[in-house]
């Protein structure tokens, strides 16, 4: 298996790759449901992506054991958790703390401000990232809330706990 060129965050210790793979397996069904629901509820989002519907985005929450791979192709939507060392070659990579990324998706935080403060890092195709940002920004309501709702009281509790755990 080829090593990721990314050295910013690397799981250490022999158990970590196993843990990363296990985590991916656990969250994958959730991701599938989340992305399909968003696509169904907010179809206009794809128009704003334009030519970047086929771009591979790697969303890298630095403190989680895995990264997320998004290919927002409406015909073959892909959103999966991948261990960092197995991440695909990204068209664009977006890197930051998990809660920041979540707040950016929900427009609770401003992407440019997070970039100015250096909390958010963008590499690769900048236009792809700008399009994704603008597409998500046109979605009303909270994607995080919608996702939590899908899992009922347990989902809402997890989201609330997450938010408490990451004071901003």
């Amino acid at each position, binding site marked *: 298996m080829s090593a990721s060129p990314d050295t*910013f965050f690397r799981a250490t210790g022999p158990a970590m790759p196993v843990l990363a793979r296990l985590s991916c397996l656990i969250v994958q069904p959730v991701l599938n449901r989340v992305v399909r629901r968003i696509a169904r509820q907010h179809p206009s989002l794809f*128009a*704003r*992506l*334009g030519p970047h519907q086929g771009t591979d985005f790697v969303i890298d929450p630095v403190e989680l054991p895995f990264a997320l791979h998004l290919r927002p192709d409406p015909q073959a939507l892909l959103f999966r958790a991948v261990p960092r060392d197995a991440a695909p070659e990204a068209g664009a990579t977006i890197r930051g703390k998990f809660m920041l990324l979540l707040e*950016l998706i929900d*427009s*609770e*935080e*401003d*992407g*440019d*401000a997070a*970039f*100015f*403060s*250096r909390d958010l*890092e*963008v*590499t690769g195709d*900048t*236009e792809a*990232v*700008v*399009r*994704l*940002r*603008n*597409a998500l*920004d*046109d*979605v*009303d309501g909270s994607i995080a809330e919608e996702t939590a709702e899908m899992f009922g009281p347990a989902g809402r509790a997890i989201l609330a706990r997450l938010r408490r755990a990451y004071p901003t």
Partner: protein
Amino acid sequence: MSLAELICPAGTPAALRTAVDAGADAVYCGFQDATNARNFPGLNFTPDELAASVVYAHERGAKVLLALNTYPPAGKVDLWRQAADTGARLGVDAFIVADMGVADYIARSHPGSRLHLSVQAAASSPEAIRYYCENFGVKRVVLPRILTIPEIREIRKEIPCEIETFIFGNHGLMVEGRCSLTNYLTGQSTNMDGVCSPASDVEYKRHEDGSMSSQLAGFTIDCFGSDEKAGYPTICKGRYTASHRPEGYYAFEEPISLNLSRLLPDLIDAGVHAFKIEGRQRSKSYVRGVVSTFRQAVDDIRAGRAANIADLVALTEGQKQTQGAFETKKWR
């Protein structure tokens, strides 16, 4: 006292609704093409989206201003004419224009409609402003960010139209509508294509030591140390060397944003009719934060209370703010 209307940016329908809900008196926006100066990827409105947005705003007592503030290159003027026709059909409350041909077309084809002179026309003297008022019936001028408050007060006395000034956001350094810097490096024109440092030509590189460099079309614009705040990859905010500045310096301006929150009463007193917030390319979060803050401030001032302005520095470029030329002509 003037009304001190709050003019707010919207890059998407969701941002427009956010701005209206946060208390905008008017929202300005543009179509998804070269007819406006924020022709950025994934941003702006389709005609259908604009139609729904105009209804949303009007139902809540807010106006919609359509930016048609670029300069059509010869042979492509029809795109601007069609955009104006669409805007008129959808009932936008004013057109923000810069090109004389576009202004003339709207004045003749849609005689009842209201024209605002864009900052892209760079009218910075009473004579220049009066040229547009007398020839095209312009009702409001958006002033370039280069004048001191006493100068604005003097201009007000000599012109027959309303004044709009920027109060927050990107601090443009070059005279708007006279800048080909982006075109020089990328082949895309600010005036003709509505772009400024297009994302397609921007690349960020992360280095081993934690620093990050920004490049535009392969030219290094800046390199930020691991602890340094960053700015937009625009040529006018870049770091360069000169023979006597071998260490590199911000030749035009450092990454910084305009924030005139403390000058609002003075601006109103000088005769400014409308306050403009820059940032159609920014997120709903920015729109919500900045618009609600200034809504509160303007309401306080109107009610004769001291405005208590929340700290907006986190939203500014380079996380620094300035009052620029409005505070002192030493800025020049």
